[in-house]
């Protein structure tokens, strides 16, 4: 009960209204996912108290931050949260060190959980301490912004598209740091994004927002595999799978990954060695999965998995259909042409072979 | 296109107008504002010339005249400035004459505040005594001479507030910011009596006479209206009107 973030928010603007009732796990990363204008940033700002929902209740791991039935509204600066904005928004008049220490100094010493050294180490910014914000690259500035939020020892981290303002290489520079936070710190994180790749890589839980309403909410793997949600229609739609490293072939540089479940299939991935037994998240894109009626072992495709059709739906592109598959407990998506679907006479319950062209290891 | 005839008509009218009447530009000391307004109407009626007056301080007019200001006649508040202009050959020789002698008054906007003998000056509990700037304004200089004569210079030193000219001294008193002030009688006098508040008309013996001289400036040398104005100021009709504003002549 106490490890939950609940937010019931209602807000009216001239061109937009928000009406959501969220229940997010009190640990791990929850993504608020949606297009621009879907209300995800407004949700985040309401959680922080930067904006006030007219009728709202916000409860974070047992603490009530807002309850309009009780006229309770905790001012943002009294909420133990950390907020990372889309632009790093460092204080231009302070050095990197003073930016970092801004929140730290304002937290009672017995409540401090993160030290300057830890934060610098976690985000690799120790060498930047004496610099002025204006001299930092976009990626460096955003890492400082994240470290600054951490140093206020938040009990909830909120991030508003922290990578959206950065170009591809800078994004790839920061993602590992975010994954590290996820692994090493036990702070729940609510992460706003409109990028499926980012979400697939980071999130444990996903809320899909459309036009100010929460359309669906659930564990990331389930959400990405659902054909009834707009997520599956996107170009980079696909599923995430959690696997355990079970072997490595040094001669061919192939990594064996066992998916959860008793009869679970084995995935073989071209990848350098990783520790046996370690947990790895992979993404399988729907467009990289093809289907056949029998196990054709003569092709160059590495992974051939026995699956059963759960559901089949037309895609937005009239030439394609989307097929949801069950691989001994793990969900897969396939995007194939409507012609092929008709040729194979695809129907729910049908047993097929899925050929997976490539598997991306996330992180 | 249809504007043309109108413009032409106006231009013709103007030309005709200047053919039989001239305009005289007069620099007038601020204390003489009320009388000159009354005189201007009569002057125009009697001579057909138009009088255009600018009001200001004598010192400022002096600086402006030296720098080419377009005045034909100068009615100063003193006699030293016109004399100086005469020395500098800035006037029509022989045109200088005294058109009025100013009278100083101790005045308060409050009725019954100033007594008939001006004893309030030595006995009153006023906080501010307004005078015109003695360096620039003859009425201010006369006021300091009065205080000197009455041996009140030291006693009133801390109470003096200066207006830049006699008009401002009047303003300080009329708004009540100064309880008392030395002003020109012409400012508070009409038809032989004080129009508002209470006043003591300072005896002429207490200060040097405030001779106000008039001159025709070089610019007005060939302007018939300038000559006409100077002549007009000397007529009994004009002097009677000037006296009714509290001046001697």
């Amino acid at each position: 009960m106490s490890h939950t973030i609940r937010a019931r928010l209602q807000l009216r603007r001239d061109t937009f209204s928000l009406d959501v009732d969220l229940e997010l796990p009190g640990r791990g990363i929850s993504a608020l996912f949606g297009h621009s204008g879907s209300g995800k940033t407004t949700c985040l700002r309401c959680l922080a108290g930067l904006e006030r929902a007219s009728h709202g209740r916000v409860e974070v791991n047992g603490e009530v931050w807002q309850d309009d039935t009780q006229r309770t509204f905790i001012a943002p600066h009294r909420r133990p949260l950390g907020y990372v904005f889309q632009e790093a928004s460092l204080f231009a008049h302070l050095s990197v060190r003073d930016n970092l220490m801004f929140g730290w100094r304002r937290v009672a010493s017995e409540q401090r959980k993160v030290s300057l050294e830890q934060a610098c180490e976690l985000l690799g910014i120790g060498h930047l301490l004496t610099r002025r914000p204006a001299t930092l690259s976009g990626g460096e500035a955003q890492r400082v912004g994240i470290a600054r939020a951490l140093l206020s020892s938040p009990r909830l981290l909120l991030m508003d598209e922290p990578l959206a303002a950065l170009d591809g290489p800078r994004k790839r520079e920061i993602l590992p740091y975010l994954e590290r936070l996820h692994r090493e710190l036990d702070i729940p994180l609510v992460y706003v994004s409109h990028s499926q790749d980012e979400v697939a890589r980071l999130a444990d839980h996903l809320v899909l927002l459309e036009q100010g309403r929460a359309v669906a909410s659930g564990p990331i793997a389930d959400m990405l595999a659902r054909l009834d949600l707009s997520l599956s229609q996107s170009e980079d739609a696909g599923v995430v799978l959690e696997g355990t490293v079970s072997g490595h072939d040094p001669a061919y540089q192939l990594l064996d990954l066992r998916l959860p479940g008793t009869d679970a299939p084995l995935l073989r991935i071209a990848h350098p060695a990783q520790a046996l037994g370690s947990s790895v998240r992979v993404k399988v894109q729907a467009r990289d999965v093809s289907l056949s009626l029998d196990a054709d072992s003569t092709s160059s495709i590495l992974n051939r998995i026995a699956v059963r059709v759960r559901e089949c739906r037309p895609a937005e592109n009239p030439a394609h259909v989307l097929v949801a598959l069950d691989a001994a407990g793990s969900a897969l998506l396939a995007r194939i042409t409507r012609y092929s679907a008709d040729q194979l006479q695809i129907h729910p319950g049908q047993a097929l072979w899925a050929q997976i062209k490539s598997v991306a290891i996330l992180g | 296109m249809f504007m043309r005839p109108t413009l032409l008509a106006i231009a013709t009218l103007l030309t005709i107008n200047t053919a039989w009447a001239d305009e005289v530009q007069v620099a007038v000391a601020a204390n003489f504002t009320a009388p000159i307004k009354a005189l201007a109407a009569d002057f125009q009626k009697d001579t057909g010339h138009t009088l255009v007056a600018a009001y200001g301080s004598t010192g400022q007019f002096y600086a402006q005249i030296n720098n080419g200001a377009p005045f034909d006649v100068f009615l100063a508040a003193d006699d030293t400035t016109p004399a100086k202009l005469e020395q500098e050959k800035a006037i029509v020789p022989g045109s200088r004459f005294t058109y009025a002698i100013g009278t100083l008054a101790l005045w308060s906007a409050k009725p019954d505040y100033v007594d008939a003998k001006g004893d309030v000056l030595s006995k009153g509990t006023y906080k501010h005594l307004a005078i015109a700037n003695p360096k620039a304004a003859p009425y201010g200089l006369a006021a300091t001479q009065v205080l000197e004569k009455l041996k009140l210079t030291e006693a009133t030193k801390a109470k003096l507030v200066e207006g830049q000219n006699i008009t401002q001294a009047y303003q300080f008193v009329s708004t009540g910011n100064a309880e008392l002030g030395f002003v020109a009688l012409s400012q508070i006098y009409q038809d032989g009596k004080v129009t508002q508040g209470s006043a003591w008309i300072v005896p002429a013996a207490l200060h040097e006479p405030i001779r106000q001289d008039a001159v025709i400036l070089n610019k007005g040398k060939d302007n018939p209206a300038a000559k006409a104005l100077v002549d007009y100021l000397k007529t009994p009709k004009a002097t009677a009107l000037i006296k009714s504003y509290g001046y001697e002549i």
Partner: protein
Amino acid sequence: MFDASDLGAIWLTLKLASVTTLILLLVGTPLAWWLARTRSWWRGPIGAVVALPLVLPPTVIGFYLLLALGPNGLIGQTTAALGLGSVVFSFTGLVIGSVVYSLPFVVQPLQNAFGAIGQRPLEVAATLRASPWDSFIHVALPLARPGFITASILGFAHTVGEFGVVLMIGGNIPDKTRVVSVQIFDHVEAMEYAQAHWLAGAMLVFSFLVLLMLYAGRRDKAGWS
């Protein structure tokens, strides 16, 4: 060069400008902050009132101050009731006049500076546990520093250059209300042109240096940001 009364006027002018600037910063900062951030209906009217001295002739301000501060005026009656007496013809009166007269020259640069900061740094500060007052002191004020420099220079310089208002409510009292601009006017009126030249020249040089400071400062800043 300068006689005792000139030096007295210079000293008085500097004192008046300093006191006025100080008061304007104290009064102008909250006012500018409010104007920069409020969404209230009053923003328009109040902003317009603050800007009035920009367009009004100083004589209008002086005339109304003379009436308002006088024994029949609202402020005059208040000061009298408080036992302060009348403030016309006093240094205090000049300070009041100058504060009114130079108000927009301090408030507007501050308002622009606060406006340029925007909402974001204050939101960031709030998420880092800074109370609104804490954010104002440690974030808004330092970020608005260029605005404060401009406001101080303009407020000071504009007060030094004040003439009409002082003329109307000052009373030309040595060491109390006779400031440099009035002293120059006096010299000209009394035909003391040499002394007028010295003082007027000093004002010219002073004003030029002030503006140079502002414009040079601006270029520097543009240089490194």
